[in-house]
């Protein structure tokens, strides 16, 4: 367990800093009631393959200095009514030219303060240096960080070997990125910290062929370290999917038991999108302090998230920002709030909202939980073979959607089935096409969770969940 509450260091990196001179300038900026600054330096190697041919190689260097300035002032608009002081803020990115020219920098900061002065929000405080420090988290793959292009060559070799071992399947194309980043953070309340992290990304398309028929399976994986790509195992699974796509048929229209498994439960993480996507988006949104503050949450502390007593398993959910090697793990979030594991839902009941520094203050909570970095769902007790049981009729198992993007406000979803299986008395038959629809909160009113687990680097939870009643639009 990497989580430490005692002697954790606050400076995991010496690679970048928020310079003292910049901090002094920010402090001296007229009208800047508070400030925070993050400096991030990123180096990335990118390799693009078409089959075994190198299509393109890229080297990327990026350094960003991002400043948030806060200005406290008498409220001028409805949003700030009821408080004697409103807090406005604005975010700006400083370029190398800004930082090299004191006059230019002063003008940029002056304009930013004026911008902050025009927005009214209820007051909130920036975090101070935590007494117990920040958790030490494992997010830096030293071997990869030492040689980014070399790491990509390692992945390429393993990838090509893994694909070659799969009959009837070839590598159509792949995109590989290896990134090392250093982040330093500082604010006007004396908080100062930094960390290094790595990330590896693999986007690949496998093509299976049989005679003149071809079928593709496309996937994207993002991890903190090379080993977690588990390329041989991953390719074996995706190659099976690609071959099954060749003989998949459209599903029949169905209303009843549907099993979601593996990637179908994942978070669709992306190096450019970041954050969350996928099936659980409404759960993350609805348990947020932001949703509660905006009066859009259907969930209330102490109440069942499903509204009514569930017939199946009850959900237990945590927001986990410290899990070792998880894709979004970091010692602190974008506002300097220390990372932690925060239980949100226990036995189906919302225990508390997860909050950032704003929503925490606005909901009257004692402290923010910080960013929702990783989703942990406690596994259930069901064996996969029991979840696939056809004793009560056919069961559809979906392993991949084209795009699962549920509505965060309503929880409704409808998604095309990229690949699934129909389990019935005659066996298991691959399916593709048609769509699955339902509502996430209603669906969890009748759900069974597997004992076996799955992770995509952001989601850690049951390998499969069987929902008692969902609809498939098929033939």
């Amino acid at each position: 367990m990497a989580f430490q509450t005692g002697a954790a260091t606050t400076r995991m990196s010496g690679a970048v800093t928020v310079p003292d001179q910049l901090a002094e300038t920010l402090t001296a900026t007229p009208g800047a009631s508070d400030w925070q600054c993050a400096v991030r330096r990123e180096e990335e190697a990118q390799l693009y393959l078409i089959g075994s041919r190198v299509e393109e190689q890229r080297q990327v260097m990026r350094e960003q200095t991002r400043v948030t300035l806060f200005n406290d002032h008498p409220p001028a608009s409805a949003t700030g009514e009821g408080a004697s002081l409103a807090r406005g803020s604005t975010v700006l990115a400083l370029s190398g030219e800004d930082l090299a020219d004191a006059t230019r920098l002063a003008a940029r900061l002056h304009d930013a303060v004026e911008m902050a002065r025009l927005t009214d929000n209820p007051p909130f405080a920036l975090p101070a240096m935590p007494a117990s420090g920040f958790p030490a988290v494992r997010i830096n793959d030293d071997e990869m960080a030492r040689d980014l292009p070399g790491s990509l060559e390692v992945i390429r070799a393993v990838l090509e070997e893994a694909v070659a071992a799969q009959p009837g399947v070839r590598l159509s194309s792949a995109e590989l990125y290896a990134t090392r980043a250093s982040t330093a953070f500082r604010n006007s309340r004396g908080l100062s910290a930094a960390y290094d992290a790595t990330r590896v990304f693999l986007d690949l398309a496998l093509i299976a062929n049989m005679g003149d028929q071809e079928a593709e399976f496309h996937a994207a994986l993002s991890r903190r370290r090379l080993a977690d790509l588990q390329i041989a195992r991953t390719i074996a699974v995706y190659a099976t999917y690609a071959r099954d796509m060749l003989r998949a048929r459209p599903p029949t229209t169905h209303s009843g038991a549907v099993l979601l498994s593996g990637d179908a439960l994942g978070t669709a993480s992306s190096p450019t999108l970041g954050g969350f996507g996928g099936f659980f988006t409404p759960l993350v949104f609805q348990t947020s302090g932001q949703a509660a503050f905006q009066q859009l949450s259907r969930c209330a502390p102490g109440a069942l998230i499903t509204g009514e007593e569930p017939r199946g398993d009850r959900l237990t959910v945590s927001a986990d920002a410290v899990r070792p090697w998880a894709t979004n793990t970091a010692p602190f979030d974008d506002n300097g709030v220390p990372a932690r594991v925060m239980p949100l839902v226990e036995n189906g009941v919302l225990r508390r909202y997860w909050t950032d520094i704003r929503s925490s203050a606005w909901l009257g909570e004692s402290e923010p939980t910080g960013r929702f970095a990783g989703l942990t769902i406690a596994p259930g007790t069901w064996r996969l073979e029991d979840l696939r049981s056809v004793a009560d009729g056919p069961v559809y198992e979906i392993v991949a959607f084209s795009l699962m993007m549920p509505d965060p406000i309503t929880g409704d979803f409808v998604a095309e089935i990229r690949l699934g299986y129909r389990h019935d008395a005659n066996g298991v038959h691959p399916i593709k096409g048609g769509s699955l629809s339902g509502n996430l909160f209603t669906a969890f009113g009748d759900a069974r969770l597997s004992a076996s687990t799955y992770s995509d680097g952001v989601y850690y939870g049951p390998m499969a969940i069987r929902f008692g009643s969902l609809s498939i639009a098929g033939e």
Partner: protein
Amino acid sequence: MQDALYRAMQGLVAELESRFPYAAALLSGQSGVQITDTGREQQANEVPPERGIVFTVYDGRSFLEYATGTLMPDALAREVRAWAAEVRPRSGGPAITGAGYATIAGNGWRRFSTTTTSGRDPATVPLSEKLALVRDLGARGRALDQRVVQVRAQYSDTSEQRVYVGRGRLLEQHVTRMSMTVLIAVSDGQQARYHFALRGGTGGYELAEIPPDELAQTAEVALRLLSAERITPGEYDVVTDPTVSGVIAHECFGHGVELDLFPKGRALAAHYLNRQVAAPTVQMYDDPGVAGGYGSYFFDDEGELARPTQILRDGVLVRPISDFSSATFAPGIHTANGRRQDYTRKVYARMSNTFFAPGTSEVAEMIGGIERGIYLRMAESGMEDPAGWGIQVTAHYGEEIINGARTGRLFSPIGITGYVPDLLQSISAIGRDFALTPGTCGKGHKEMVPVASGGPHLRMKARLG
């Protein structure tokens, strides 16, 4: 400073051109503001500038790029020369064809700007005025009905700069993109529903205006959605509004004809060039030169001047869209569609403004001809499947049609799925109306670029769920 940077780019590209069959540089960045007001929270921030330069060479076998945020000319030159010193010309790959057919006379800079051709430049509008616009929109929305629990108004103006040096071309463009979105959430105490309105395009500040009647209609639909039902899955006769038509175009033969997918074997369209894939009345285009289109530009990220590409002619697939790299490996097809998210990302063949051309039918006639069907409204999202020709488009809601008349009964959300040729060959009527909707397009789940999609109302058969 800017002139020194441009001179440095020219000098460095000239050095690279002396060693490699192809070299180019692209400076990109953006400025502007984003404002959000929910009634309970306000934010006003700069648009992230994402400013940097990417240098590209073709070494005789593959493309190599160095991308950096360093914009000080001397430091930039040191970085680029250090990178170039490690790169050697090779042989064994296809020859660079020069590919493009849009030639530019003269050796001087060519400069393009939307702000010289459109209305009020948003950069000249005080922030206080923009904030007032957003706050007023929110306040008017909240006053429409006591069941309104939130009105979220989002304003954005972005001035996008691109400077291209290469192939004897020196090009600079400034494109201003405007957008305003208002989302009205309502609740009856049991459930929350919402509807939204969206305006945007390239041009002046006036594009951010959402008229009062549109705001009222948005609230009215949100309230009607409180009683919306889930649709019974099945195949329906449908009429699609221009937003849904546009996303169908975008997902079917927008992504489906991106030439970079062809050499990867990822596009079924490669086998269907010059074959019938849609009803004979269907015409479809991608055109970065559409005046006011949110996906418009003057030249693409590889210095290719904007021009329209007709993708479907009379239902026949006639031309894919391409970038320089894919056109190099598939000579003869180079369109102005090489785009990158920003300097840190690769160029791909990407859409700009993608749309079905209008036809001759009146919308009322199209609906009037349906015995039992659904009028699909407000596309939310879509997903491509170029290899399998599956399609997923999600409409925010649909309205029942019985005996040629809309009944007022709503269903939400509605997923449209099917096999692309089946869907497009079922098109039986094409409206005479036309509209483009602003949006953001990803390649898979990444590489976001601004685009527009649209067209007229269409009547077809579709599987809904």
